[in-house]
């Protein structure tokens, strides 16, 4: 369990072949408390993935700093598990070996890796698929395995970059419930990037709305829905109210982004 401090982080991508540099992120300050589940919501291209990649250590900020438990982030590490939108299971490893990849890199022995993987496969509902290769799995199963793989290192923070973005609506809803149940059991600190408003409200305790590029935090909405959450909450008036409020905010930004691109 850990907290994250994002302090005045900004990112500008250099121009291609002498072109104008692209400002992806305006200075951003976010503090994520221990055990918090924070969703970052924004229109596509707003830089929310860039922000997450900076926290992961996969990208460097142009200015500002990110710290986890006060320790500055300089490179990727096993303390920050990540699930990507694209399917990133290693195709040459079975589900069990994929989940055991992180522990193996840390020098955990075979027997213990097996125990970790088996426990996680049971947790994400992949118990019968230990020896399957990724290409034999559906998209939803692959993302469940990817989640298990990220959890296998017992990271302090879980970074989720639209992990369900490529899934169909029904599978996505089931995955949200699965992730929620995992979070409700472990209460790991979670940073969840999405452009799906309902998803953000259903999953998170706090929703941060980002503006169109260059991205900055536009507003913050606290989700007072109690845990454990059930899918029926999506039909409650309180849920509808939050959804409306966020839809309004995002719509503005999407229109702005569309106007910029014309």
């Amino acid at each position, binding site marked *: 369990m850990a907290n994250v401090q994002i302090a005045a982080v900004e990112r500008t991508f250099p121009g291609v072949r002498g072109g104008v540099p692209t400002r992806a992120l305006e200075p951003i300050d976010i503090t994520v408390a221990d055990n918090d589940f924070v969703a970052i919501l924004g229109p596509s291209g707003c830089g929310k993935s860039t922000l997450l990649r900076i926290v*992961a*250590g*996969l990208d460097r900020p142009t200015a500002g700093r990110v710290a986890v438990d006060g320790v500055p982030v300089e*490179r*990727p*590490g*096993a303390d*920050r*598990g*990540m699930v*990507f939108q*694209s399917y*990133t299971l*290693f*195709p*040459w*490893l*079975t589900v069990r070996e994929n989940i055991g*990849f*992180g522990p*193996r*890199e*840390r020098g955990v022995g075979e027997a213990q890796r097996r125990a970790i993987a088996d426990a996680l496969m049971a947790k994400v509902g992949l118990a019968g698929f230990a020896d399957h*290769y*990724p*290409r*034999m799995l559906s998209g939803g199963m692959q993302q469940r395995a*990817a989640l298990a*793989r*990220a959890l296998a*290192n017992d990271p302090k923070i879980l*970074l989720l970059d639209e992990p369900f973005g490529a899934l169909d609506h029904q599978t996505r809803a089931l995955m949200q419930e699965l992730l929620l149940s995992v979070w409700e059991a472990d209460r790991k600190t979670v940073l969840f990037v999405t452009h799906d408003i309902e998803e953000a409200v259903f999953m998170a305790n706090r929703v941060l709305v980002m503006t169109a590029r260059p991205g900055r935090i536009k507003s913050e909405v606290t989700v007072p829905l109690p845990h454990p959450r059930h899918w029926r909450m999506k039909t409650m008036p309180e849920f509808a109210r939050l959804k409306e409020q966020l839809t309004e905010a995002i719509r503005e930004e999407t229109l702005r982004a569309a106007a910029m691109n014309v």
Partner: protein
Amino acid sequence: MSRPRVLAAFEPLVPIAPGARVALGIAFFVCFFALWGAATWGGWVKPLFLADPAKTFAAGWRLLVQFNFAGDIAITIGRVVGGFVIAAALAVPIGIAMGAFKPVEAFLEPFVSFARYLPASAFIPLLILWFGVDEKQKLAVIFIGAFFQIVLMIAVLIGETRRDLVEAAYTLGAGNRGIVFRVMLPNAAPQIAETLRLVLGWAWTYVIVAELIGAEAGIGHMIMDSQRFLDTGQMIFGIFLIGVIGLVTDLAFRAANRRLFPWQLGR
């Protein structure tokens, strides 16, 4: 909406039953021999230029039984495998280093790209001068022909590793060693095997050229000797045999790949 089967056969990418695939493959060989037989036994081509199938295989039998041709075959195979293994053993690690590390690539790529175009056969006179006509010269020809090609192709394969897989591995705690040996290498391994299979085929060309120009034994040497006696049957048998050896190695490579890389198979 049932269409005639013949039309269905020309629907793009429609799979074919395994039995039919083998049958069609064999059918072509049958056509090939039929055409060859027709051309020679039918009298369209003079025996001096093209021996008929029966004479060719009779010549082959004579070679094997009377002239210890099996020894020549073994020598040639030994040269191909030897030269190829030496080239691959050095080229694969260098290719991996080039693909993974950009400074290594910047250092080696221009030279390797240049060297790749140097025809191995053009080196033969020089190599004879350096090594004589013994085994070292044969291995060197194959080495020059195979080494630079392998380096470059492996470098490209390794460099094409999916970025998101590398990033996922980093977030799982992998270091640089882990990325190279447990992501890039296994990821590219099937294509590396495929590259080696391809280059092994080219190595056959180099060894035969080397043997034609100067050798005391080997399949190429036999073909050259046969020309002196205008024995087209023996020459054709030699060429045919190389094709057969190539076909067998290919099948072996494919079977090995299926074994080694089960994760590549379909659902």
